[in-house]
């Protein structure tokens, strides 16, 4: 069998030689046979004749021999493909349009799915990820994190899981790394020693962390990521053993993690994995013995063959005895441990991007549908134009299967070209998508094209090409009377007209689906605009933020005084700077101080979400916040003077009612304490502090002079914009050397950063809408040129009778307009549905926003008419003599 197969393949490539040899072999036979006849006395001519007679038909023998080589099937396919390629080359318009649609449908879908897969579906790159679980401590219907003593005790006593580890990264995303020269920033993860063992990850170089590294007092060590190794050490072996100063810790590098390993949190890429024992040196405060600080994420690995439920119930039994190692308010219910599937890691990225990406996947799925419709429409329309060709071929004796095979070859060729271009587009697209998704946050995902998706979309697109390519050939072969289709334009046959009707119906469907996509894009774009241009309560224009990373060390605290004093003064003195102020935990800050606040006498307590903002004088003015009542902070609100505060409108309303806050007193906490009370001196307009989409929350502004807080940002209002950044940087370096500098950005770009998911959605959906419109244009233009070609005779007659080109164009465009109108009417329902589907993503625009619908319909309608104009114009210019001669 193997010989057989190899022979066929070999024969395929040695075709010419085999043909020559066969000729020679048969020639030899005939000559010998003739010689034999001559021996018995026949003439040369008679001998040759006899030889040929005895042999049989030479050509048919040759054909049989070729078949015996077993390459006939392949060869006839090759000739089919050659023919298909020629046909496609000869109709470049159709080919380009079809390939374009296929490329977009396949490429865009594969790109979006590849990202969705990375973010939502893909398991962690660790050993047997399906065994991993995330532990949640439940009490009274609320899940909480773990304290370190709890984890230690749990780890010691549990036997339900093969192993557990704890990790945390919250305050460590922006550690200050000092390695000679200017301070740099690094992202770290604090992990317990069992981390790498439980995940089943080996070091690429050196060693991983182990349980011995957990012991307090152990010299500081760290495992670095491949990327950090590359960035800081250019992959030099000498990195191992080198010591880094990170915050207050001295960490010796003991190993490098594998390249593909990013930890348990998809989308993140830590620079350093640091053992728990180093916690007090890299974070403010010692949390290792703190029972009441729950800050750790705990994950574990299931024992072979033990179910999640069984392990959870065993752990919950243990949780009953471990209560004293964590927060236990009086009267609280029993604690239990719930195990969540952990094979895909922590859900942060899934939570942030899962829903948007699914929405995009749905939209891009519609794009694929549209691409299929488009190819199908074009194939059908072309089928009608080709009915004459089919007729000729059938008349010449081509079998129906042969005709179908021909069409199949064309479809496969189209799908192959579209598929490979689509793969290219997918690669570029997924790269761009990761860039887009990663903007404004350290997102680390491998660029990859998902092969399954590529194959899937390719197959769908190929199938639609195939079905609608075969349909005309099949119908032609069963309906067409070859004689008639040869004789005239097959005027009496219903088949071509049916193709046109079919193509038009498909086009209407396509326009309907397109409208949904376009309207979806308009809705998301309008939503983004209303987020951008809403009233933030802060005037963004001309405002700049200088972020200072928070370091709670004595040296850093000393620098804080400089920031509040000299640095601020010198920034205020810069040319172009109108106002400047410092603050702690300002708008959109990752750090936020929240708590309860109570009014004197009123006993009204605002919830935990009240934010406290420590500000210098001039803060409200710098931020451009409007004073609703009272005054802003001034230089007189210094230490020793009456403690004062400003409230946001919402806080003032909740605590005191409309317009009664100024002059009243408030205090932090549950109970009003006169000794620590503050007098409300002013009320400011509500401002969005947590994020652009957030509800207004209660805000309390207190003067830094009276209640010191670390400076986390300097706000600067200027006319100079970012050109001041260099000056500010110099001031910081000169006045407060050693201070870690975060970023200097305009407030507008901070908002943009916060709107980054919305921007991604708007951008992606707009791209999809553009693709959709392009495909609708291509489809309508194609349809127009086919129908115009069909009506060529009619047009010729009309021109001959004196119709002007403009009248003809209008006549042809009416047809397009009817298709568009039908499609838009049909698509209204789809547009409504997509609006409802994206309801939760919309801000400041209703899901059934009429403006968006009308805008989408207009865009689609105008684009469609515009695209049909050119072929219609061309048809109207045709020479009537030429057109009439066609018959």
């Amino acid at each position, binding site marked *: 069998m193997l010989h057989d197969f190899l022979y066929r393949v070999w024969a395929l490539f040695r075709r010419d030689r085999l043909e020559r040899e066969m000729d020679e072999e048969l020639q030899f*036979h005939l000559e010998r046979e003739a010689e034999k006849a001559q021996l018995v006395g026949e003439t040369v001519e008679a001998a040759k004749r006899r030889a040929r007679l005895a*042999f*049989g038909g030479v050509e048919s023998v040759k054909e049989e021999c070729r078949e*015996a080589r077993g390459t006939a099937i392949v060869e006839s396919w090759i000739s089919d493909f050659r023919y298909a390629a020629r046909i496609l080359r000869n109709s470049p318009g159709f080919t380009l349009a079809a390939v374009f649609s296929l490329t977009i449908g396949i490429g865009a879908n594969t790109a979006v799915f590849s990202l969705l897969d990375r973010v939502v579906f893909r398991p962690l790159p660790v050993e047997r990820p399906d065994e991993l679980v995330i532990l949640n401590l439940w009490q009274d219907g609320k899940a909480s994190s773990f304290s370190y003593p709890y984890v230690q005790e749990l780890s010691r006593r549990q036997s339900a899981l093969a192993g557990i580890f704890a990790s945390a990264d919250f305050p460590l995303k922006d550690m200050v790394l000092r390695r000679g020269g200017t301070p740099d920033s690094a992202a770290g993860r604090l992990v317990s020693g069992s981390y790498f063992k439980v995940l089943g990850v080996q070091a690429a170089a050196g060693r991983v962390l182990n349980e011995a590294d957990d012991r307090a007092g152990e010299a500081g060590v760290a495992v670095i990521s491949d990327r950090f190794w590359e960035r800081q050490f250019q992959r030099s072996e000498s990195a191992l053993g080198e010591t880094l100063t990170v915050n207050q810790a001295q960490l010796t590098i003991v190993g490098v993690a594998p390249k593909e390993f990013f930890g348990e949190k998809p989308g993140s890429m830590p620079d350093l994995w640091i053992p728990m024992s180093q916690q007090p040196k890299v974070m403010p405060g010692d949390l290792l013995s703190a029972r009441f600080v729950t800050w750790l994420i705990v994950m574990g690995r299931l024992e072979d063959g033990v179910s999640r439920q069984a392990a959870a119930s065993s752990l919950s039994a243990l949780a009953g005895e471990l209560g004293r190692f964590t927060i236990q308010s009086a009267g609280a219910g029993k604690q239990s441990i719930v195990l969540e599937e952990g094979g895909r890691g922590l859900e942060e990225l899934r939570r942030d991007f899962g829903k948007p990406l699914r929405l995009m996947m749905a939209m891009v799925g519609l794009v694929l549908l549209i691409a299929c419709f488009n190819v199908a429409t074009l194939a059908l329309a072309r089928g009608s134009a080709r009915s004459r060709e089919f007729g000729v071929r059938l008349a010449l004796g081509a079998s129906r299967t042969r005709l179908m095979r021909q069409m199949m070859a064309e479809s496969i060729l189209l799908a192959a070209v579209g598929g490979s271009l689509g793969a290219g587009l997918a690669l570029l697209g997924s790269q761009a998508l990761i860039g887009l998704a990663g903007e404004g946050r350290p997102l680390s995902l491998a660029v990859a094209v998902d092969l399954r998706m590529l194959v899937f979309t390719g197959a769908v697109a190929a199938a639609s090409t195939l079905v609608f390519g075969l349909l005309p050939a099949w119908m032609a072969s069963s309906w067409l009377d070859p004689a008639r289709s040869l004789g005239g334009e097959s005027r009496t046959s219903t088949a071509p007209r049916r193709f046109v009707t079919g193509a038009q119906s498909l086009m209407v469907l396509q326009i309907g689906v397109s409208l949904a996509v376009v309207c979806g894009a308009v809705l998301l774009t309008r939503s983004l605009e209303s987020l951008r241009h809403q009233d933030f309560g802060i005037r963004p224009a001309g405002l700049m933020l200088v972020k200072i990373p928070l370091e709670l060390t004595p040296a850093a605290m000393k620098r804080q005084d400089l920031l509040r004093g000299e640095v601020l003064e010198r920034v205020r003195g810069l040319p172009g700077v109108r106002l400047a102020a410092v603050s702690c935990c300002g708008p959109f800050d990752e750090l936020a101080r929240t708590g309860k606040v109570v009014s004197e006498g009123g006993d009204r307590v605002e919830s935990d979400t009240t934010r406290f903002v420590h500000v210098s004088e001039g803060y409200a003015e710098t931020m451009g916040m409007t004073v609703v009542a009272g005054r802003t902070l001034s230089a007189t609100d210094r230490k020793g003077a009456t403690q004062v505060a400003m409230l946001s409108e919402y806080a003032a309303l909740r605590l005191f009612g409309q317009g009664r806050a100024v002059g009243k007193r408030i205090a932090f906490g549950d109970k009003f304490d006169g000794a620590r009370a503050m007098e409300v001196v002013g009320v400011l307009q509500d401002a969005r502090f947590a994020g652009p989409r957030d509800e207004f929350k209660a805000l309390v502004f207190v003067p830094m002079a009276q209640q010191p807080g670390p400076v986390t940002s300097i706000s600067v209002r200027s006319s100079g914009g970012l050109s001041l950044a260099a000056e500010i940087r110099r001031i910081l370096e000169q006045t407060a050397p050693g201070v870690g500098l975060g970023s200097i950005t305009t407030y507008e770009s901070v908002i943009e950063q916060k709107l980054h998911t919305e921007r991604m959605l708007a951008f992606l959906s707009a791209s999809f809408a553009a693709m959709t419109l392009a495909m609708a244009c291509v489809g309508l233009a194609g349809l127009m040129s086919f129908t115009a070609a069909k009506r060529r005779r009619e047009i010729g007659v009309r021109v001959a009778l004196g119709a002007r080109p403009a009248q003809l164009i209008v006549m042809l465009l009416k047809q397009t307009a009817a298709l568009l109108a039908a499609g838009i009417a049909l698509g209204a329902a789809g547009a409504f549905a997509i609006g409802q589907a994206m309801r939760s993503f919309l801000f400041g625009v209703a899901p059934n926003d009429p403006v968006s619908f009308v805008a989408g319909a207009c865009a689609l309608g105008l684009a469609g008419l515009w695209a049909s104009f050119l072929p219609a114009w061309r048809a109207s210019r045709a020479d009537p003599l030429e057109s009439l001669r066609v018959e």
Partner: protein
Amino acid sequence: MPPERLELPQGTLELLILQTLETEPQHGWAISERLNQRSDGALQVQQGSLYPALHRMERRGLIRPDWRVTDNGRRAKYYELTASGRKELKAETASWKKLTAAVALILSPKEI
């Protein structure tokens, strides 16, 4: 084809070719001559039909082509048996014998 000559049952031609090539490699014309002679002209293989059979057997690896120069200095395509061709010959001969014996038995039951 003259009526007194026998039509070859399906697949027999290949067996005959294998048999012809057992002793020495031959070219196509020689095989056709040999078949003609051995059957005393009773089996007339249309000469042309020999070649598709040869090429099919070549594809299946039963015979191997070998271009040689003939006695009178002409280049010709000789075929020789391969190992699997020999095996095939043995097996096919045996099964042919069994088949003909069985068929003969059925056709002339009185002789038993």
